[in-house]
């Protein structure tokens, strides 16, 4: 076998389809890495060993029998542990889901399996996707392959780590306020937050339903486009998923097109690490030199985004997490006590501090007497923010910004300062509020070697331009 770690998903699927590589060998290799390097990074919560080999055998058999196989044939893939996958623990990084094995597949997981992908395991994450450092996971944090003492970012930290460590070429995470793009930036990989409604949420354990979106991570633009292509599209099981005509993302990824790229001044303000800024400015210069138009713009509502985000996300979370009550599945404490006691003991023991903090925040902003001042007002400003982006994308094709204000920070650095932690989402959360797609691409490093993520944002359903621009930057770098 050629060096597995250097193979892209696009190469793997071509070699598997031609019979050059065996899907079973690949699965064994990936599982082996998961058990060794993955374990060292604490990147997986569970592995799907038997099922993965079974899927790989099915791919190999199909190829031997000259039956058609999907566009991800034989590609080892990892899923964030909040994406339901039949027969394997789906914990959301929480104690409260102890032993919960879903009897159904998330639409995204089912589409991956249909495409021939081999799902090898479920990755570590902040509890219920609430966190930016992976430190809220009940299973302990995943580590950043860049450096042992660095957080991998969150909440999809495990998914970013396994791609950065080259255990799998593609993984899936989920975003509510930046949970794919931020860890992608911290670990030096590519991460996409698709348009809201483009990848089905069916089977994604909800955090903030109006913001949540599954998104892929990969080591290059083409694999990222391929992963998105296979999983996007209308799903009748998700009422908020949208039917849209999508182009051939991988086929059209190379373009001569020259983009107009907006630089929002609000994204280059206080709190931005100068080395990160320098890297982003360098990317702009390189693009400008390549003939793209880089122009200053303003997004005045940016400084409201984090406040709106935490009100909306926590409000929805407080309701979404009500189902974890110890009655039907997962952890149950106080089983011999009366109902209210059982509820409260179960939830007290089952949820971590950050989750409790957000449930309380969310409950508060929805309470009678406070609803208008918080939730309703936030919803209105959110709508204004959405329109601000819509107007902006009439002027420019893309927006460029840093993906995060700083590179990966150290474990423990922000854990006791929730507000500082929340601010690490300041460049990513606006896209979730507006429902637009965003991509984080690795570009350069700061002096001590930590990677920097450059973010591009586009209008609704304009993922193609995002793939194209990061492909261009990839080529120019």
């Amino acid at each position, binding site marked *: 076998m050629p060096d597995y770690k250097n193979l892209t998903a696009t190469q793997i699927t071509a070699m598997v389809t031609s019979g050059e590589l065996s899907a079973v060998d690949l699965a064994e290799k990936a599982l082996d890495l998961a058990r060794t390097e993955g374990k060292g990074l604490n990147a997986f919560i569970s592995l799907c060993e038997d099922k993965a080999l079974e899927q790989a055998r099915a791919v190999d058999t199909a190829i031997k029998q000259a039956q058609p196989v999907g566009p991800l044939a034989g590609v080892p893939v990892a899923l964030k542990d*909040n*994406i*339901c996958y039949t027969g394997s623990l*789906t914990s*959301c990084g929480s104690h409260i*889901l102890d032993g*919960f094995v*879903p*009897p*159904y597949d*998330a639409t995204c997981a089912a589409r991956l399996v249909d495409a021939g992908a081999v799902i090898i395991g479920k990755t570590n994450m902040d509890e219920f996707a609430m966190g930016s450092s992976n430190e809220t996971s009940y299973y302990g944090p995943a580590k950043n392959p860049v450096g042992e003492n660095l957080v991998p970012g969150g909440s999809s930290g495990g998914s970013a780590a396994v791609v950065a460590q080259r255990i799998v070429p593609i993984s899936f995470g989920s975003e509510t306020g930046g949970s794919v793009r931020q860890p992608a930036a911290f670990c030096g990989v590519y991460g996409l937050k698709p348009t809201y409604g483009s990848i089905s*949420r*069916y*089977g*994604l*354990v*909800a955090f*903030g*339903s*109006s913001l949540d979106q599954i998104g892929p991570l990969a080591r290059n633009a083409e694999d990222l486009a391929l992963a998105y292509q296979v999983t996007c599209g209308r799903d*009748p*099981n*998700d*009422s*908020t998923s949208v039917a849209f005509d999508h182009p051939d993302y991988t086929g059209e990824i190379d373009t001569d097109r020259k983009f107009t790229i907006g630089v929002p001044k609000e994204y280059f303000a206080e709190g931005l690490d100068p080395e990160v800024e320098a890297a982003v400015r360098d990317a702009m210069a390189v693009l400008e030199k390549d003939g793209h138009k880089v122009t200053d713009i303003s997004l005045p509502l940016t400084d409201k985004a984090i406040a709106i985000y935490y009100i909306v996300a926590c*409000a*929805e979370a*407080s*309701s979404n*997490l*009500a*189902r*974890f*009550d110890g*009655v*039907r*599945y997962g952890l149950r404490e106080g089983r011999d006590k009366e*109902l209210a006691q059982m*509820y409260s003991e179960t939830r007290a023991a089952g949820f971590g501090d950050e989750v409790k903090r957000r449930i309380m925040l969310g*409950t508060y902003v*929805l*309470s*009678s007497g406070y*609803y208008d001042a918080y*939730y309703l007002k936030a919803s209105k400003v959110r709508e204004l923010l959405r329109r601000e982006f819509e107007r902006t994308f009439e002027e420019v094709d893309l927006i460029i910004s840093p993906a995060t204000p700083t590179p990966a920070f150290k474990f423990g650095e922000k854990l006791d300062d929730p507000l500082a932690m929340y601010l690490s989402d300041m460049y990513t959360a606006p896209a979730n509020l507006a429902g637009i797609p965003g991509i984080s691409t690795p570009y350069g490093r700061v002096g001590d070697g930590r990677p920097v993520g450059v973010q591009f944002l586009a209008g609704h359903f304009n993922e193609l331009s995002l793939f194209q621009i990061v492909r261009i930057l990839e080529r120019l770098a």
Partner: protein
Amino acid sequence: MAVYKGFEPVIGLEVHAQLFTESKMFCGCKSEYGAEANTLTCPVCLALPGALPVLNKKAVEFAMRMIAAVGGKVHRRSVFARKNYFYPDLPKGYQISQFDKPIGEGGAIEYHSGNGSRKRCRLTRIHLEEDAGKSLHPEHGEGFTRVDLNRCGTPLIEIVSEPEMESPEEAYGYLTKLKQILQYIEVCSGDMEKGHLRCDANVSVRPVGSEKLGTRTELKNMNSFKGVERALKFEIVRQIDLIKAGGKVEQMTLLWDEKKQVAEPMRSKEESHDYRYFPEPDLVNLVIGDAWIESVRLSLPEMPDVRADRFVSQYDLRTYDAAVLTDSRALADYYEQVMTHFDDARAASNWIQTELLALLKDNKQELHDCLVSPEMLGELLSKVKSGDISGKMAKTVFEAMFATGKAPDVIIKEKGLVQVSDESSLIPIIEKVIAAYPDNVAKYRGGKAKLFGFFVGQVMKETDGQANPQTVNKLLKERLDG
């Protein structure tokens, strides 16, 4: 109203009607009563992590039928909202309902007020929501509560009236009419015992002539229309007595205890819910186009009051009879089908009311179980009218039809019940009878007219009661008087 010693009650009702769609409101599970516990469930209605609701269009259509039937307005855009509270029979921890933007608004119910007049009560709103599961609390020290989630996610409409009813009897009349409409438009069985229809009431009292509404209380846990009436009576008296004794009515919820016939305040802890309503982010806004609204409106059947009025004019029935016959859509349909095989509207009406309804009642059957088709009943009634059989025979035949489902001809033949009207076969018998009693013939001709009955009796005896009495009368008279 006069019964309340200077006070008048003001009553509003909130009715939950379970829609009998085939599947549940947000998943594909069957919506059925009486299946084994927890067998009609799936990831969505069990609220497994990651499962999402998908709206059942049929439930929307059923709600639209009701809104159209009461003359309300269907909103072009309505919004589902989450009503948050914890309970084991509510797996998601919230109920998907509608809050500030319901599917329907306005309309009215016209009902019989209990003192013979018709009254109208306007409706505030009609909204869609899902039902919770069922908690089966321990009866005899079992020590734990069982939860059945089969009902969980069944579609409901909540019909909220304005506070415009003025007596418990009116509330009863309103509910009766509401149930009739729901059944006519075939969206709800109306069965209160099975919980398909549930009613909460709110009531206040005020001095007669006062414009200002008193403090209202809410009554829950009534499981029949009569129960609603009784609970209201109880609560009205309680409020008036309280005010008269110098007290103040406090806003609260009371639970009706049917066994004890009292309404007792709910514990305040159970009352103090803050449901934290907010728009359901898993569903998009419900947008309904004019074409759909119009097609639903056109698909509605003739409503009961309109149909009763038509029965009066078309079939020349009395108002009372028309009301009985249009009580249910099935009975009215049955009557009209009989009338396509028979031409005496009043005779058909009488027969259905006296014979058919009595037999159904005696046998505890519903009309749809009845073995006598309208066509068969029409045939039977035609035979009575033409004199082929007597009314008395027809009763016997009808009972046999009801029991066996056989056609009237078959039964008449089996029982040999044909009425003999044919003169040529009756004349020899009549002549034989006259010849057998020469003494009585002489007495009759001598003026003892009463003896005519004796001769009729003898002829009937000879024919086993099958002779047509009118023909016998005529032939006897010709021979005896002539």
